[in-house]
């Protein structure tokens, strides 16, 4: 298994599928502590990515990630659009024009993506945002990637599992960034929608490699 452009395209396709399937769930999460649009936004964005893939097949993982960044930036809107847009853009820059992305490079790309989100959104871990899924994912990916002769599937699995755990761990938090922060204490007891969509994206990465 290698992270080439076929994997990347399959990943993005699975992301689109996941957003369509979980659209209502993400809307419902956003309804509780936000404005009921996260599922709609992500679904719209990834459907647009699919349409782009139909038009023009990218030649490298980096090209696919960059196209995704630009598409999300221009189709998602809201907070999630610029944040995911920046994340994919930084990941694209990190992988450069490699034909195949090595495990360590992928861990680095995830870190770059997370750093991009933090740079734009200024959220810290614990603020109850997507950063709470990205940060444990980045850490877990790096641990596996830094081990002896890592398998890239293990890196992807570690990231997905950590992101999922990170999303669940947002439940008790009081939001300090994003729309949920307006709710104050009332934001506790709900899962952050952006953390959940992050987990879906990273889980799709595993699916594409399976």
């Amino acid at each position: 298994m290698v992270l080439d452009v076929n994997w990347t395209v399959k990943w993005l396709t699975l992301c689109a599928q996941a957003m369509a399937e979980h659209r209502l769930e993400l809307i419902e999460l956003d309804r509780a502590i936000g404005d009921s649009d996260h599922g709609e936004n992500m679904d719209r964005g990834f459907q647009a990515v699919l349409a782009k893939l139909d038009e023009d097949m990218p030649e490298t993982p980096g090209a696919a990630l960059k196209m995704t960044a630009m598409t999300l930036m221009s189709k998602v809107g809201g907070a999630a659009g610029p944040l995911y847009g920046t994340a994919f853009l930084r990941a694209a820059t990190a992988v450069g024009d490699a034909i195949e992305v090595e495990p360590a490079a992928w861990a680095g790309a995830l870190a770059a993506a997370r750093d991009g989100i933090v740079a734009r959104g200024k959220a810290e871990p614990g603020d109850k945002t997507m950063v709470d899924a990205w940060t444990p994912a980045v850490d877990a990916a790096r641990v596996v990637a830094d081990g002896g002769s890592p398998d890239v599937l293990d890196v992807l699995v570690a990231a997905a599992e950590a992101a999922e755990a990170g999303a669940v761990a947002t439940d008790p938090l009081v939001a300090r960034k994003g729309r949920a922060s307006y709710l104050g204490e009332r934001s506790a007891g709900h899962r952050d929608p952006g953390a959940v969509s992050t987990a879906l994206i990273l889980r799709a990465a595993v699916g594409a490699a399976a």
Partner: protein
Amino acid sequence: MKKLINDPRSVVDETVQGFGLAHAGLVSVSTDPLFISRQDVPVAGKVGLVSGGGSGHEPLHAGYVGLGMLDAAVPGAVFTSPTPDQILPATLAVDSGAGVVHIVKNYTGDVLNFETAAELAEAEGVSVRTVLVNDDVAVEDSLYTAGRRGVGGTVLVEKIAGAAAQRGDDLEAVAAIAERVNANVRTMGVALAACTVPHAGTPGFDLAEDEIEIGIGIHGEPGRHRIPMESADAITDRLLGPVLADLKVSSGDKVLLFVNGMGGTPLSELYIVYRRAAQIVADAGATVERSLVGNYITSLEMQGCSISVLRLDDELTALWDAPVHTAALRWGV
């Protein structure tokens, strides 16, 4: 969900098309990317004013495009900020060389998308100043969070900054006026019933028959506190207290008092709220110099209202009174 729509996904496009048809002499509509502009942009020598945000707040922002107010409005999906690839062309379209002011309601999404667009516009040689509106006193601990939201005050910022641009103020001066309005306006809102975002299909929150949400924003999101239903006067006291306190309104102040409907509340009820609000302002020794009552920044069919108080000075009053010709605000022309 029962709405006068055809398809949840075409709501914004069809609204803007209808708006463009109804106000054909006043505005032009760009459909791809979607934005609304004055017929006559760029207006030679004039600083351009662009605002935008999620749809669902009509008449904001498209209803404020026209002489003496906005040069362009950029609508996102319902309750979702627009994207840079809409904001950038709108910015370029209105720039006459005198620069462009972005009036941005302080929400993470709006801030980030306008930020990107401003960067791209600067890269194309357009000077952009961004003014954040953040008048919502319902948001506490705002230092440690995303900060206060931009709500009712937005309408007042757009009107007054629009008048400054129209009289020929330069870029820094228009931005400064907008900042001054924002610094002098505070708002707080209440919801009696939630609204339903078309693509979501269920109300943004559930309220019992005897409950209201205090401290709501304009995105159908839940508010800060939920309390049992009260009389209009008691609710007015509850909203206006924090507004006057935070703005430090004191005896001798002149103010603009703005009672805004959230979209689904009868105008008659807004006047009942206005009546009490005017009494409270008078009791505080301040004078209501100007007033505005109606549905000016809404949340679809939400039931409820917000109350804004803007502290006026002679220049702000004169700019408020200056001619304006838009679909939703018009006088002097």
